[in-house]
């Protein structure tokens, strides 16, 4: 099976400092890779490299898919555009006709229990609702690769749990490959296949079943 994403000896130098160095991994279709590491270790940089928003200083990043969903730490919704417009725009950017894009986006918002908020502006929505719109935007494009950059940051524990449920359900339905970056072991999706731990001394793969969460929490 052709991997959707391959990192080969990838390194990124930022302001004279190596943020990532010699990173090798591949991600197969439908698989979920969680990336754990403390703040400032280069987790978000890794996602930006995967999305081709940044170029590696060393090595190569091979991306075999075109449809990417990206959930950022903050919702990053367009102000002055309704929730529906925010979800529709990536579909239009993909070349989908507005007549198809609008019902698809509305359906995805309804899937996130936001059917009543399609015409609401982001400024009028709560933090949790905004992040659900962001999740709807990411899944509306039928992503072959989903990039999740600590999407639960800043949410209270109840909202985190609720968002986890939405995410787990959508990941299971979509079958998309996913890279989920977090510094909290508790945020890792239930279906995660592998965990990549980034530390100051390098990167190490672990199996979720072998994960010593207590030790990890202490380490992070």
């Amino acid at each position: 099976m052709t991997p959707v994403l391959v990192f080969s000896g990838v390194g990124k130098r930022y302001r004279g400092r190596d943020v990532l160095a010699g990173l090798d991994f591949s991600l197969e279709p439908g698989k979920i890779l969680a990336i754990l590491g403390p703040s400032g270790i280069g987790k978000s940089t890794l996602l930006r490299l995967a999305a081709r928003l940044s170029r590696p200083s060393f090595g190569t990043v091979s991306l075999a898919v075109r449809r990417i969903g990206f959930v950022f730490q903050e919702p990053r919704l367009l102000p002055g555009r309704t929730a529906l417009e925010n979800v529709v725009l990536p579909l239009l950017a993909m070349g989908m006709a507005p007549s198809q894009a609008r019902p698809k986006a509305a359906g995805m918002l309804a899937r996130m229990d936001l059917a009543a908020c399609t015409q609401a502006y982001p400024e009028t929505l709560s933090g949790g609702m905004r992040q659900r719109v962001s999740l709807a935007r990411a899944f509306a494009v039928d992503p072959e690769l989903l990039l999740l950059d600590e999407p639960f940051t800043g949410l209270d524990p109840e909202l985190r749990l609720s968002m986890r449920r939405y995410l787990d359900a959508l990941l299971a339905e979509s079958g998309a490959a996913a890279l989920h970056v977090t510094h909290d072991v508790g945020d890792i999706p239930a279906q995660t296949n592998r965990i990549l731990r980034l530390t100051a001394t390098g990167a190490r793969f672990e199996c979720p079943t072998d994960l010593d969460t207590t030790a990890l929490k202490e380490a992070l």
Partner: protein
Amino acid sequence: MRWHGIAGRLCGLAALLGAWEAASRQGHGIAVASPGETVAALAGLLAQPAFWLGDLAVSVRRVGLGFSLGLAAGGGLGLLAGWYPAARAFLVPSRWMLTSVPGVVAVMLGMLWFGLGSTMVVAIVALMVAPAIHVAVIEGLATVDAALLEMARAYRFTPGMRFWHIYAPAMAAPLFSGGVVALGGAMRVAVLAEALGSNEGVGHALAVARTNLDTPQLYALALLSMLLVGLAEMTLLGLARRAVGRRRS
């Protein structure tokens, strides 16, 4: 606006009219026309279709054309300067020169470069408008949210989508504010240019009234110029408020 705001403005206007009336009674009518004479002269002017279709239409057309050219040039160069720091640095001396040159000097130079008439007036208006729009566009681009641009790149937004949904909303408020200031300045400089170097337009009519010592007519044209500036500013400010209001929801 609250009632005391309206009352305050009405009191201010009444005081101004009172002072104007008092000043007109002190002189012999050549230096200061009374408010009554001015309004009567203005009504007489506006009752003439020839004035609407002649001087007024010419001035409005010149300001409109000059403003549009200044908007296009200032907007285009503003985008260039906002996106490319090297272009911004390159344009600083030109912008400084245009913003610091007094209106009357610009008119004198314009008369030398373009001769007398419409081309000169339109060119001067455009040159006066362009720097204000240029600065407004740069200011707007500086407020564009880099995180939103990154989101747009991640979702492969087309350049048109990025411009319309990210850049344009950020630029709207400063552009309208800058446009209001530029339009007021454009009207003033157009009247000045017409008074000094044109044989038609509101400014030319002002110059003729001065030559003929027709003080009520001169005051009526001055009042008309002020009303036109006020009307244009109110229209643009209304649009600016709507743009800012929508952005802030």
